[in-house]
């Protein structure tokens, strides 16, 4: 005779608080029996164990008495819609309406450290782990319910957090009750069980779960948090990288006289702080501080390329195969080139903002961050606290793109709160966001020499990369003799990461170079690629892209051109991008008319968010190709905001069409950044096609293009 709900709950001593909705029962997993063949869940668990030891997402699904399910993750909403995708899979895995699913994100007191929100891997790692975990839990629940209700499993159905007997609807038991009982061991190894029903594009279930809040202005970011007795705060940042900056004279009397400023002074040896009753008062106070720093002895050289080459040091040889050599002869053509790309910055529309307040010996910090656990570690270390004394609560980030991965802003806010003796909301100016005392997306110098035979096969290639982290295209082309060397230069900047891949500029350079090799042996650039690729999986993508573009082979440009480029990111995300451009010789302006992309990224769980992410990444690539450049003069930065740092706007937006292809059986592989590099290269190749001139220096500004065409 099944227990009544009340009998069951009182028997096990489950407590229900006042209001009776939020009793959490931790779902306790059993380890699965080790079989000959590991299930997808077991394989994923092994991967996650390696990356995030001790974190099992089955442990982090909580089922409450009112049928709400809560999941926890360190990952954060930064514009990619990951919360929605977690809700999608849990809703389906646990047979619950999406409204019942809550996801707690990025709270270091409540969430597991399942990784920072970087690397385009939240879907592949966290979302997929939650899917597999929820699917297994659901199967366990059916087995338990069968025992509890004395019914065969086939006679049972799910309904809104309960399991009931099809032939007797009065026989039911809730997930919450079952989860508190014994858990059966997983027996099924059937991989077909894990198939996920993907809602079609434009299915209402794929709508972003934050949509209502976002479109009504109710969505809260860090600067929107109301806090009694909270001050605004800011820092005078040294004009150079902090490792070089030695503070000399400081006079804060002017700042102290600004109406609204509460305190101004030296916070520590690195920073001068101002706190006040408004953002405006603080900015005026900062401007009124008179401070000087010792001018560091670093090269004043303006031109990026020579500064980077000067004093270069070999970091390592990334790849060495065969015997690269380059001798032009009757059957071999040699092409030797250098590609240069300038410094950049992420400029998310929300400047990284932190609200810090003392909590006993420690702090509570609210921040829209990609990495709450790094913020916690950084603050704890600097204040000599145990990490448990620092709580970091992630707010949704108003964009991040690599700008919000470190502890600096969180720590600066904590320093100000400590110094001011009050909660402080650190809201930097846009200038400070960009300059940050020297943290930029690195400029890159890419030297490449290749030898091609008459059949259009690349027989030898040597690359020297300065300032970036890798060629990135090792998986794309099969070249028998290769040497890739990586160099660093002692420049007074810190290297920032920026949406793309860690080797974005290298892909741009190499995919541009591939077109030049094709031209040198008079072979169509797509055909040339087809002859040299390693992965046959690229072929349907190339065909799809060519089809989307209406490409019928390369023909002379006359100011109008088509270009393509490819990427294999991490041997798991494949992309081919095509661009159509028109170039006006008189002004040097490049107009991108169309972008097309064909991507093989495995399973696409939510095509609404995936398409937005991929198109956004392609526009990011367009922006990088044509517009973005941080202006540095030795170690001083002259870029201060959107008046002198251009990013893509509505007027730059072309028609964009994308397709997802390929084998989906292995689960999702991610896509939010991979399209960036091939888009930059496709546009560059289209410009070459349109004009017959190759431009070797990003961004392709009208001044450079006009001068190049006139020459």
């Amino acid at each position, binding site marked *: 005779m099944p227990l009544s709900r009340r009998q069951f709950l009182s028997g096990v001593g489950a407590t229900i608080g006042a209001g009776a909705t939020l009793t959490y029962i931790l779902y306790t997993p059993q380890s699965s029996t080790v079989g000959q063949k590991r299930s997808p869940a077991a394989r994923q668990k092994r991967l996650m164990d390696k990356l995030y030891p001790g974190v099992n997402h089955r442990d982090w699904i909580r089922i409450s008495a009112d049928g709400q399910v809560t999941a926890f993750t360190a990952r954060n909403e930064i514009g990619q819609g990951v919360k929605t995708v977690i809700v999608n899979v849990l809703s389906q895995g646990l047979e619950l309406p999406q409204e019942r699913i809550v996801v707690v994100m990025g709270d270091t007191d409540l969430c597991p450290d399942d990784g920072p929100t970087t690397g385009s891997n939240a879907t592949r790692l966290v979302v997929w782990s939650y899917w597999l975990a929820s699917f297994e839990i659901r199967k366990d629940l059916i087995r338990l319910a069968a025992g509890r209700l004395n019914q065969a499993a086939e006679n049972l159905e799910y309904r809104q957090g309960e399991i009931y007997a099809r032939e007797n609807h009065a026989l039911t038991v809730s997930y919450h009750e079952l989860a508190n009982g014994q858990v059966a061991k997983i027996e099924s190894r059937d991989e077909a069980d894990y198939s996920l029903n993907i809602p079609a594009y434009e299915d209402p279930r794929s709508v972003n779960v934050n949509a209502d809040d*976002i479109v009504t202005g109710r969505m809260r970011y860090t600067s929107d948090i109301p806090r009694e007795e909270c001050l605004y705060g800011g820092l005078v940042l040294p004009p150079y990288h902090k490792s070089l900056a030695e503070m000399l004279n400081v006079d804060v009397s002017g700042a102290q006289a600004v109406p609204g400023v509460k305190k101004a002074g030296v916070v520590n040896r690195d920073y001068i702080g101002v706190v006040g009753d408004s953002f405006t008062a603080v900015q005026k106070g900062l401007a009124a501080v008179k401070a000087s720093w010792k001018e560091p002895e670093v090269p004043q050289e303006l031109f990026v390329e020579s500064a980077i080459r000067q004093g270069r040091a070999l970091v390592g040889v990334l790849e060495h195969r065969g015997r690269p050599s380059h001798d032009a002869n009757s059957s071999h053509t040699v092409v030797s080139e250098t590609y240069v790309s300038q410094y950049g910055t992420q400029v998310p529309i929300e400047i990284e903002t932190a609200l810090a307040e003392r909590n006993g010996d420690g702090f509570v910090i609210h921040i829209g961050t990609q990495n709450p656990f790094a913020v916690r570690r950084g603050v704890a270390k600097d204040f000599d606290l145990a990490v448990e004394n620092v709580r970091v609560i992630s707010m949704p980030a108003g964009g991040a793109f690599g700008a919000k991965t470190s502890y600096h802003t969180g720590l600066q806010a904590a320093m100000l709160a400590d110094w001011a003796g009050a909660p402080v909301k650190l809201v930097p100016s846009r200038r400070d966001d960009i300059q940050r005392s020297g943290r930029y997306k690195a400029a890159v110098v890419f030297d490449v020499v290749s030898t091609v035979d008459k059949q259009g096969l690349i027989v030898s290639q040597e690359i020297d990369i300065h300032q970036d982290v890798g060629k990135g295209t090792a998986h794309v082309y099969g070249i028998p003799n290769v040497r890739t060397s990586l160099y660093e230069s002692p420049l007074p900047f810190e290297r920032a990461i920026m949406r793309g891949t860690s080797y974005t500029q290298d892909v741009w350079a190499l995919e541009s170079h591939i077109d030049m090799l094709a031209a040198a042996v008079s072979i169509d650039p797509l055909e040339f690629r087809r002859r040299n690729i390693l992965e046959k999986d690229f072929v349907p993508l190339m065909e799809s892209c060519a089809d989307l573009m209406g490409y019928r082979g390369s023909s002379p440009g006359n100011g109008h051109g088509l270009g393509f480029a490819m990427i294999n990111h991490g041997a798991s995300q494949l992309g081919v991008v095509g661009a159509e451009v028109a170039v006006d010789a008189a002004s040097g302006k490049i107009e991108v008319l169309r972008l097309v992309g064909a991507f093989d990224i495995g399973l696409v769980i939510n095509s609404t968010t995936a398409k937005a992410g991929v198109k956004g990444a392609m526009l990011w690539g367009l922006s990088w190709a044509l517009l973005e450049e941080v202006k540095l003069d030795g170690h001083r930065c002259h870029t201060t905001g959107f*008046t002198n740092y251009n990013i893509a706007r509505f*007027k730059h*937006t072309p028609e964009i069409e994308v397709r997802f292809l390929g084998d989906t059986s292995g689960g999702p592989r991610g896509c939010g950044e991979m399209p960036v590099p091939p888009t930059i290269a496709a546009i560059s190749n289209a410009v070459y096609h349109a004009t017959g001139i190759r431009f070797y220096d990003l961004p392709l500004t009208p001044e450079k293009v006009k001068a190049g065409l006139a020459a």
Partner: protein
Amino acid sequence: MGSYLLDVNGRRHHLESRPDESLLWVLRDKLGLTGAKFGCGEGMCGACTVLVDDKAVRSCLVSVSSIASEARIETIEGITPAGGLSALQSAFKNHNAFGCGYCTPGQIMSATALLRANPAPDRNAIVAAMNGNLCRCAVYPNIIEAIESAAGHSAPEGP
């Protein structure tokens, strides 16, 4: 400090502020209307966009002392109908016309101004009117689609 009378979302507000404070920070900090966002302080990103007498205005550039007390100021909070979404807001939702959402209030206010002045804009008119609003997530294609879709439905409820 000065005393100011502002008409915001159809209500009159008396408030104290320094004269050179921007409308953006007055709305956010004095009136708790945090939909309008700070993105640059130079009028170049559009995240602070509100309507003043039906025109899109970069509130970070307008000082509170320069606003006439009769000027009708509207924010994202004011154009949201009680308990629901306007046709334009529904269009943004259904066309996924946002990424992180930080620029979205400004986008919707600029789009509202456009549709009030021009209920049936073509794509060129949309791009021209919206070009001052930056979106770093670059969901521009979806925003354009959302506005085109709302333009078809804007009367009689209004954007």
